[in-house]
């Protein structure tokens, strides 16, 4: 196998990165759909910053970054939801508190013990070299559970996202559904660490959905387009990252941005064609 576009598959670390990326490409826009339509997109960024504190804490006690990030994000997500329910502060104020609080805690914890032998940048921006067999297994388990739970709860999540009050008036357990979505968001952040990194995962959750929304189709159709955008972005991004020695997470995100711009143009052509 020489000079082919799939040459990178000859390397085990690239195969692991590709598998982890594809899992992430299915999960991120699936959860991102519900965040975007609820105007809750900043939640992804908030949880991502909090996960840094989780990772730093995990390094101290010997818990793998994926699981430590999952634990920290899940606890923070539940805390954010609880404060939102109590209407103590506006949702954006709550998330700002958690975002900067989590980031500061992570930086302090990492600074207290600088010789941890791990590059912080690899967590922030992703590093495909860090996808080990162990982390791939964790990503596959967490990703599959997250995707499955979301699909099973699809109708309830959709109904609550459409209008919380109407869902509550109809007897749906809105609080449970919101908390479940927050924890599913936490799980998505946790599995993103190696491939796109904490600072860029929000983009993979949101931008494919924004690109899909330009076509003004139904919810399931929007989801399908967002999945396609995310999977293609991950595959093409990893290939380019390998070939051109680029940062994997940033390359993937730049491709989603390109896909968004392309969808802007394509959707206008499609609308014109329909009108004529």
């Amino acid at each position, binding site marked *: 196998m020489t000079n082919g576009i799939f040459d990178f598959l000859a390397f085990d670390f690239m195969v692991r990165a590709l598998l982890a990326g594809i899992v992430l490409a299915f999960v991120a826009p699936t959860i991102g759909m519900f965040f975007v339509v609820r105007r809750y997109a900043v939640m992804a960024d908030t949880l991502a910053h909090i996960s840094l504190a989780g990772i730093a804490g995990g390094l101290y006690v010997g818990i793998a970054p994926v699981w430590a990030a999952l634990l920290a994000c899940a606890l923070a997500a539940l805390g954010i939801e609880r404060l939102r329910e109590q209407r103590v502060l506006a949702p954006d104020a709550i998330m700002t508190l958690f975002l900067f609080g989590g980031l500061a805690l992570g930086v302090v914890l990492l600074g207290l013990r600088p010789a941890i032998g791990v590059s912080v940048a690899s967590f922030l921006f992703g590093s495909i070299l860090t996808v080990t067999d162990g982390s791939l297994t964790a990503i596959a388990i967490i990703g599959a559970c997250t995707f499955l739970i979301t699909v099973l*709860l699809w109708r309830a999540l959709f109904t609550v996202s459409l*209008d919380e*009050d109407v869902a509550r008036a109809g007897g749906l357990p809105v609080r449970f559904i919101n908390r479940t979505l927050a924890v599913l968001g936490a799980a998505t952040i946790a599995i993103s660490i190696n491939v796109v990194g904490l600072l860029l995962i929000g983009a993979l959750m949101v931008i494919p959905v924004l690109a899909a929304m330009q076509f*003004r189709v*139904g919810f399931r159709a929007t989801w399908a387009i967002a999945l396609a955008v995310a999977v293609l972005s991950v595959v093409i991004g990893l290939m380019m990252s390998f070939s051109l020695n680029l940062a994997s997470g940033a390359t993937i995100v730049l491709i989603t941005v390109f896909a968004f711009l392309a969808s802007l143009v394509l959707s206008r052509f499609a609308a014109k064609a329909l009108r004529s």
Partner: protein
Amino acid sequence: MSVTQPAIAAEHLTLQRGGETICEDFSFSITAGAYVAVIGPNGGGKTTLLRAILGLTAPTIGTVQLFGAPASDARVRRRVGYVAQRGGSIDPQFPATVREIVAAGRAQYGGLLRRLTDEDHRAIADALDRMGIARLQERPLGTLSGGERQRALLARALAARPDLLALDEPIDGLDPASREEFYAALRAIHDEGTTILFVTHDVHRIVQEADTAICLRHELVCHGAHACHIGGTELRNIVHRSQDELAEHHSV
């Protein structure tokens, strides 16, 4: 369940909003199958009362029962269809087709993991037909006119096949023709025995439709079968006159 059980029973209800008392020690009962207009000026407490009835806001004092069970009971709320004020918090750009929105009305039946059944599909098709929007079912929400959007939201509430249909100023923003279509659709739903609770400040029109009125203006002004007690002109006056002039109506 007893046939004579009221659809809504409020006892000694006191509601506050932002420290202001909306109504105090307010008791009333709504017979199942009634068409109730909740009227009053803007800011008079209509929506607060409706939210308390639907269990969305806890009363400061007192209780609300729906069909004999506390309004806070999620099981009894499955018998309720609700169209929120100005379409509630729905973003007009929400990426969903009319059919997906109407299908959401069926989510309150069964468990969270339940898939749509043939019965659900029949209820969705029926709701689309009744609101005359079957031809729009594949259209995204963002492409609908105001009237079409309101009919889609009413269809969502109808898809739940509710025993109580609660509507919060659903005709605001509709042109006269769309309003008349909306009223006609509600009349047909009411004729089938559904209890309707219609919040509006369009007193002139609603008195021709409803058989019972609850009139609020920061306090309970009157409650009852308005045709027996109080005419449409008087109700209009009550809604628009100054607070001091209301005292004479309190005994209604």
